[in-house]
């Protein structure tokens, strides 16, 4: 078939760490620094993959398995996300499967963090579960609103069904979904208003604390999986905007990649402008995202026939 269907996953696998570089460069620009090289994430992952792993004696097989399962889950999720109108695999109801691929990844990250027996990591695990409980409904409700709008219960049908006329007819609803998914995107990828990816020794950190015991190739895999997760969830947001244009083939692929680049710049700008929310405010932030998704769903149910 067309090129975008088969190139989507390789493009994501290759380009994902690049986004981290773009985000860091944007932040560096705002801080007036030169910043690390754009390809720094690739260097880090390559360096880590060459090293040896060290395992604590308290850990079991769960701890060693978790990074691999996480990577597998996120790659499977990636095959479902359409790029330029078509995804590698699609079936009815795959959006639920998509959401729970991330659920599986999170579950194993959390269990592995508990497996280390460190109370510090347990704290991070508890927070991760708490926040994702609030982020997941927002994501699912947003996706359901979109699927109702497009009249299809699969990711590729959903984004393929969006058109410019939908934006005219139900623009506010789609914009609300985009904002809600963007907030979930920031929360799930532990970006700044929720979590700070740069700090390692603060009591408010969530994701970084759970992977503290990983070293060598395992840490490399965790980093790579995290960058893929950034790519996949970001692809949802970019798709909301790009799919309405109805581009396919190589042009669609190029526009999509440009959209991802733009998204990374926006994330960098958000991180430069905002301070991290205090931990008590984070649930409010996520519930806000959820209520926007509910609002979008109501608008779609009530006014789109």
């Amino acid at each position, binding site marked *: 078939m067309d090129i975008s269907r088969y190139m989507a996953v390789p493009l994501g696998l290759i380009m994902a760490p690049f986004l981290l570089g773009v985000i860091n460069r944007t932040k560096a620009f705002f801080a007036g620094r030169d910043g690390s090289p754009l390809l720094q994430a690739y260097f880090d992952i390559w360096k880590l993959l060459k090293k040896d792993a060290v395992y604590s004696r308290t850990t079991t097989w769960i701890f060693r398995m978790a990074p691999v399962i996480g990577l597998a889950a996120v790659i499977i999720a990636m095959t479902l996300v359409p790029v330029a109108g078509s995804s590698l695999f699609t079936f009815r109801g795959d959006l639920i499967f998509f959401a729970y691929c991330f659920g599986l990844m999170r579950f194993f990250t959390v269990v592995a963090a508990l497996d280390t027996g460190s109370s510090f990591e347990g704290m991070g695990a508890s927070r991760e579960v708490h926040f994702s409980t609030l982020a997941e409904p927002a994501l699912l409700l947003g996706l359901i609103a979109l699927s109702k709008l497009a009249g299809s219960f699969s990711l590729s049908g959903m984004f393929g069904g969006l058109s410019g006329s939908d934006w005219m007819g139900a*623009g506010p609803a789609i914009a*609300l979904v985009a904002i809600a998914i963007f907030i979930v995107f920031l929360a799930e990828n532990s970006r700044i208003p929720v979590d700070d990816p740069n700090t390692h020794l603060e009591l408010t950190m969530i994701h970084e604390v759970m992977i503290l015991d990983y070293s060598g190739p395992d840490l490399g895999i965790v980093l790579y999986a995290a960058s893929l997760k950034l790519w996949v969830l970001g692809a949802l947001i970019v798709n909301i905007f790009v799919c309405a244009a109805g581009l396919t083939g190589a042009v669609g692929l190029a526009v999509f990649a440009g959209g991802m680049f733009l998204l990374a710049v926006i994330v960098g700008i958000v991180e430069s402008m905002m301070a991290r929310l205090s931990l008590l405010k984070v649930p*409010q932030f996520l*519930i*806000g995202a959820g*209520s*926007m998704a509910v609002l979008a769903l*109501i*608008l779609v149910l*009530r006014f789109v026939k």
Partner: protein
Amino acid sequence: MTLLMDSILVLLIIAGFLLLSSSRLSNCIKIGAFQGLMVGFLPIVASGSGITYRIATIALVIAGMKGFVFPYLLSQTLRESNTIKEIKPYIGYTASIFFGVLSLVASFWLDSRLSFSVAASSRLVIPVAFSMMMTGLFMIVARKTAVNQVIGYLVMENGIYSFGLAIVRDVPLLVELGVLMDMFMAVFVMGIAIYRINREFDHIDSDQLNTLKG
């Protein structure tokens, strides 16, 4: 015009959510001002191309009052009372957002049960108006600080105003200005009341008024 109108109505709902979730009183005043401004511009957007000087005047006066005069009066009162945040509302902020979502669902349900002949171009007006009324009422009940209660009153008034706009569409100028005058007086009087509460109790929790009972 529906897209623009829908966007404004959605912004009104989001402003309601923000009001329910923010504890800083100066932020509440700003969000309330934004909502008032948006409500003020509704008649212009609703009338579309058939805009007249009368509608434009009403819209500008209302937007000016709700967007600038009331917030100014409220922030004056706030400055004198030395209060920054609502510390302990009766109902917490997270629960308040839940209420906001529930009231939104309820108002859409209510709208589907009642069949109004809507004069405005967007069918969204009625449920949004209901939801603003409920949000305002909720703020009056669930918040302790007098400033927040006044904002709740204004939000409720916004709801009633947009409801009237949706149903009647053309209200005589005199009635409109009369209502606005009443509101102005209300905010003014409540400002004085807040000032008095503050002088009597050193804070603006209206809760403390209970101690005045003999």
